[in-house]
């Protein structure tokens, strides 16, 4: 029974919280969304403020609207959140300092891999003498060869 009372209290509280934020529509909603998509909803597991259906995200969207209304630039709004919650609030780490590692390492890896593939190709191709490929085959013959090859394909 106690749970139920709490529940009702909770339900009663929801509209109150909502009233604190300015209504949607008084600023450009696309800008709000753009900013919200970069920020992490602080109570959610891994959702952006733009996506999260939670009450907290709703309030954070409200704050974004408020600050935009107060003539903040989008950068200032983001900076405000970073100042309040730390770098953690940003869903992708700003590419500077130590964070550069996470941005560049995947591509460094691909680069190293490409070089490795090329080197392997070179090394392995020297293993046996190359057989010259016949350049011209009778089309009917080729059709037949290809069909029979195809039957053997994995």
């Amino acid at each position, binding site marked *: 029974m106690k749970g139920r009372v709490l*529940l009702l209290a909770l339900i009663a509280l929801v509209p109150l919280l909502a009233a604190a934020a300015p209504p949607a529509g008084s600023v450009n909603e696309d800008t709000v969304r753009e900013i919200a998509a970069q920020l992490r909803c602080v109570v959610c597991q891994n959702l952006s403020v733009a*996506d999260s259906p939670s009450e907290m995200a709703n309030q954070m969207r409200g704050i974004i609207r408020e600050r935009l209304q107060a003539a903040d630039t989008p950068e200032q709004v983001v900076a405000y959140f970073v100042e309040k919650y730390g770098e953690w609030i940003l869903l992708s780490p700003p590419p500077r300092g130590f964070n550069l590692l996470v941005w560049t390492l995947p591509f460094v890896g691909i680069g190293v891999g490409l070089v490795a593939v090329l080197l392997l190709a070179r090394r392995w191709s020297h293993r046996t003498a190359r057989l010259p490929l016949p350049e011209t085959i009778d089309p009917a013959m080729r059709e037949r060869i290809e069909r029979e090859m195809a039957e053997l394909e994995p």
Partner: protein
Amino acid sequence: MIPEIGYAMTAVALGLALYGSGAAAIGARWHRPALIQSSQHAALGVFVLILAAMILLVYAFLTFDFSVRYVAMNTNRGTPFYYRITALWGALEGSIILWSWMLSIYTLLVILRYRSRHPEFYPWVLSVMLGVLAFFLLVMTVPAPPFQRLTPIPPDGRGLNPLLEDTGMITHPVALYLGFTGFTVPFAFAMAALITGRTGDEWITVTRRWTIVAWYFLSLGLLIGGWWSYHVLGWGGYWAWDPVENAAFMPWLTGTAFLHSVMIQERRRILKLWNLTLIILTFGLTLFGTFLTRSGILSSVHSFTQGTIGAFFLGFIALILLGAFGLVAARGDRLKAQGELDSILSRESAFLLNNLMLVAAAFTVFFGTIFPLLSEAVRGVKVSVGAPFFNLVNIPIFLALIFLMGVGPLIAWRRASRENLRRNFLWPVGLGIVAAGAFRMLGVAHTLALLCFGLVVFVTATIVLDFYRATRARLRSGERLLPAMGGLLVRQNRRYGGFVVHLGILVIALGVLGSNAWSIQTETTLRRGEAFQIGRYHVRFDGLAASEESNHFKVTGTFTVANDGRVLAVMQPAKKFYPQEQTPIAYVDYLMGLREDLYLVLGDFARDGSQATIKVQVNRLVTLIWLGGLVLTLGAGLAILPDRRKA
């Protein structure tokens, strides 16, 4: 008493698995068929005991035995019947039971199929599989016992995580774990190959279909997970790059790489070392995923628990990696490539690049997922690595993969002549460019969207062209159309099964493209009777209703959706208030269509029902993702048919 019996069963199963693993190894080493036989019996015993333990746990759930901690944590008297059964795998302890049970099924299947074949490999495979099984049984006995008692016995349980009360949560874990555990079979064969020194192609040909099964179930698990996320979590998306999603995606990526690179070894005798590395990594990543999501090391939807479990998993992963790579090093002399690679313009190198990209994607996901830990350890600053990062870094990689998907199956082995390239790619490349151009003229300005669409058309064209040519060749030899096409599919089921899977992936890619490029959304507050327009939909708010369900309190909004004055649907998104949860859970309502979904999430509302805030999304082409899953299923089914060529 029953929980104690259950616990005893898991403990005995652990003993049997350890014995069976050892007996099979000794039997293999010193050629004692009796010991191998005995090991088989032990495996059967393990299967029966885990099954019995599972039944006992389900019984505890059905009878509300809250003296069992796991039952008390994951159910309460209001939990509906079905979810009391699926609550079995609603959290860590039960998931481990499900996992080991599936592994024991795979073990039995391996026994049934191979007990009189591959005599050199078989006992070692049995030994490895029972060894892995023993680890999970150890987890079940020591750090995460599902039958642990709770004192004092609470009058009611805490209840299942409300997000898990969904049909997707019945099927998702089953498919996912069938995928995870399925990779144990090729891994065990790889280890057997290394132990016996028979590092040729045998282990690869034997496990080809097992790998496809595991890969397919893992894909299905991921897709059902996306479906669940889309229609339960209420954020309007299907993939959030959450650590738990990443954990399942990483083995999928390396498993996909493995599936492709084994073909190169089969045909060209190269990449032996690489294939072993890939299967070890894939198997290691299935364990790592569990470690990541279940140890509580990262906070995420699925991390319900914290405890010593992390140390167990980390230790086992270290053991597996050291052991496996140790074996690889010991057999290094036998792993030298015998074949050769003639040209960078060849199928071999297309497959190598495919592998490179898949592994790069896996690495990106891995590094991005653990980077917050690294940053905290090194800089002492917590950072987040989320969707914007993963999308940005992975999109070029995935586009390259789609491109290679078109090139790989058609480019010639060894060395592609100009003639081969012209013949196979001139038309598809042309079509891709024309399609992208047409799209541009239709007003699509997004470069990535154009590129992706062009690539999808290109790959589809290569597949259609190949199938057309092969059919034509058969027609020329006097077959009729349908038998010719059917014959192709059945006789070359590997090739065309693969193509159908590729088509499925392309359909999914279109869905991902569409939902990212063209979805629209808005959030608005409506008074009762008020309406607004989004896309082609006219949405009217008709009021709120409250109801009491068996285990929660529900507030339902009613919205009438019309298009050009014609009523399409009455939609009822809701908010559910669970006593055990601090915040309400959104209950999404959506109108599904091939072209677009209308997706409603109820936000705040006035208590008297006079007004409500609603988040409305028109999600474009999301349905293609689920359809792609169906196509993928067909393709995997085709690829898995027994090989007819030898018959």
